[in-house]
């Protein structure tokens, strides 16, 4: 509480890591110039954040529609140049295309679906949160750090530590020793073929990570079709479908189909009533309020 209140003010020395201030994606009139390889980005959210910075407005007032357009243009352009794009980017593209349609088309009022605006607000919130954490990281690393800016006694005469153990070993040492050792004894001659299928777990994980929470009835397959190569479409659909069945059984998802062979819609199970137990679990569950903030 005392002593270093002005810590950040005094001197902000050179960072120990590179802060990349300049946008890595120069934009002119909304036209992405593909100077930068998509590998330069740390995932679709990072790319979205870079694009939104180029809009030069407060993230709270950003045009998500415009952002979605830029992202889709970018992905299109990359796809014409490079054949492969990480699945993450494609799933995000599909979701943004879906979001765009929700924003543009009037949606018939149906039960308690969030509107396109609410979905857009939630995306904006996620971008703000990522940006906030980036800023926090810069602030943290810019503090006066012990051993770099401020120093402890160089010739300690006393090693008083409460309950100081006579023997030293850290949990990290313990774990690395164990993992290294198990790794060494592992049979490593396993050859893995390039995967042509989307594993169930992968489909589920990507969806959860990117979209965060499927708060509304969503059908991704329509949009995925645009971005996933035809030969992979079947496996993507199959994996997504069985993954969703599994999650319905666990009480995490709801599934809806209005007629036979009709489009399947899925959403996160409402966590307020019967399913409360599993939905409040934390990891995957979303907040109802978040989108309206």
């Amino acid at each position: 509480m005392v002593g270093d209140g002005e810590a950040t003010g005094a001197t902000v020395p050179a960072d120990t890591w590179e802060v990349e201030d300049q946008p890595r994606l120069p934009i002119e009139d909304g036209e992405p110039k593909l100077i930068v390889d998509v590998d330069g980005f740390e995932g679709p959210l990072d790319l979205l954040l870079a694009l939104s910075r180029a809009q030069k407005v407060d993230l709270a007032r950003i045009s998500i529609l415009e952002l979605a357009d830029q992202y889709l243009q970018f992905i299109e352009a990359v796809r014409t140049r490079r054949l492969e794009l990480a699945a993450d980017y494609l799933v995000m593209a599909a979701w943004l295309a879906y979001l765009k349609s929700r924003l543009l088309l009037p949606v018939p009022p149906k039960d308690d679906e969030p509107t396109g605006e609410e979905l857009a607000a939630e995306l904006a919130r996620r971008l703000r949160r990522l940006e906030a954490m980036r800023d926090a990281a810069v602030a943290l690393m810019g503090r006066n750090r012990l051993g770099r800016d401020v120093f402890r006694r160089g010739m300690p005469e006393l090693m008083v530590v409460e309950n100081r153990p006579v023997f030293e070993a850290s949990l990290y040492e313990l774990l690395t020793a164990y993992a290294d050792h198990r790794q060494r004894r592992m049979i490593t001659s396993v050859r893995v073929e390039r995967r042509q299928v989307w594993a169930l777990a992968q489909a589920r994980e990507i969806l959860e990570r990117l979209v965060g929470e499927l708060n509304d009835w969503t059908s991704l397959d329509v949009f995925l079709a645009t971005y996933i190569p035809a030969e992979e479409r079947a496996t993507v659909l199959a994996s997504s479908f069985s993954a969703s069945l599994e999650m319905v059984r666990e009480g995490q998802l709801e599934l809806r189909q209005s007629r036979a062979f009709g489009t399947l819609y899925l959403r996160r199970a409402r966590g307020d009533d019967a399913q409360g137990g599993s939905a409040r679990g934390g990891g995957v569950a979303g907040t109802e309020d978040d989108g309206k903030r």
Partner: protein
Amino acid sequence: MSVDHDHLRIVEALLFASAEPLSTAVLAERLPHGADAEAVIEELQRQYETRGVRLVRVAGKWMFRTAEDLSYLMSREVEEPRRLSRAAVETLAIIAYHQPVTRAEIEAIRGVSASKGTLGMLLETGWIRLRGRRRAPGRPVTYGTTEAFLTHFGLDAIQDLPGLDDLKGAGLLEGQIPPGFHIPLPSDDPALTDSEDPLESEDLADLAPNDEE
């Protein structure tokens, strides 16, 4: 304010001689019975206020450190601290502000799967630690920061993280945890939170990866 000069000397000697922060309790233990350790520390802090070395409070304890404005002078011969990758720094910030937090939650915030080794490297720095397991499907390990983190970054408590109040006010720390279940503030309290569990043996059966031989 009158503080016994001998008490002052004792606390000064102990703090000067130690490279680690010392708690008020440890200092009090070495003072004559009945001495007011807090008053002694306060007076000592006052006396060093304008000196080249200052008495500061980190992680709830006390330590002498060189004055901040002299860093230009001191850092001349310091070997470059290990460079952390951008991903590692970002992950560290997320853990600090969102703790206790699971890897999946970190990934959800960054929108990208954790690169191999990032958490391992942060564990190696000694700034983060495994806290427990989240009471949620899969019961993933939760991460939090350590006392070494507070000491290194000169923080008295995790609540002193820069900009914490603003972030909280903007609702950016709530993550995906339903409001009402948690106080949306980071906590490095060693005690497990409501949503964290040590495992019980009967839970373990379904968790063991490939448990059968």
